[in-house]
């Protein structure tokens, strides 16, 4: 049998991988993929807590799974809008490298 902690540790490591990807990579599409990794790490810990908290009827806590459902839906919409913005940016600037996109930099 697994403990709750093992799922939480896996979720923490996955979140850190995504976080390191956002900080270390300079390609905007890879940064976007790393954001998806972080969202999914949060989803994993939510589902682990939902399975851990069993109701008196012997069912898992479904409110956490509903939250995961909504997170997945919003993430799908976010990916569509974000990729459209990246395509528009590529059309205007001919690059996806964030060091070349620095007009707002002070």
């Amino acid at each position, binding site marked *: 049998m*697994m403990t709750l902690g093992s799922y939480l540790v896996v979720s*923490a*490591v996955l979140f850190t991988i995504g976080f390191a990807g956002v900080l270390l990579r300079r390609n905007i599409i890879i940064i976007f993929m790393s954001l998806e*990794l972080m969202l999914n790490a949060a989803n994993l810990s939510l589902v682990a807590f939902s399975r851990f908290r*069993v109701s008196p009827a012997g069912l898992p806590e479904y409110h956490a799974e509903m939250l995961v459902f909504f997170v997945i839906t919003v993430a799908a919409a976010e990916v569509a809008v974000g990729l459209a*913005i990246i395509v528009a940016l590529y059309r205007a600037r001919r690059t996806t490298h964030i060091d070349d996109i620095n007009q707002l930099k002070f």
Partner: protein
Amino acid sequence: MPSVLFWIFAAVMLVFGVLVVVNRNPVASALSLVVCFLGLSALFMSLNAYFIGIIQVLVYAGAVMVLFLFIIMLLDLRAEECRKMNWVAFAGSALVAFCLLIQLLTVIGRTRIAHEHFPALAAPVDDVRNIGQLLFSSYNLPLQVIAVLVLVATIGVIILSKRQLR
């Protein structure tokens, strides 16, 4: 789920998660992300969340990743050439990420309930029926709000891709 399977799927997920970040070729990154999401959906199923696991495969490994690959191939991105690296920024970000990991692991290690096992479920859980009932009773308003959100996203994407940004 036997713990061997848990560790296999967790290892697959983490290894391919690292590959997403370290690959130079964006197409290889996207394909690693697909495998990573498949491992994650196996972990969801090991937690008796079958509906969420299926949704994960359909929405993420299916729709979202196809969109990613489509955009990568549309933009015709090649493997990045090696640029001059800013080593101070690199070391600083690696240090911040490492500190975050240490912090998270310390918090998890000190939490009392993290060392407890999962309690047993009463019977085989009728997952989809329960989620569907909740979705159309207590979560009816959020469901409709999210429908509007998806509609707004669709319209926004069409407008963004039709007009030339200046």
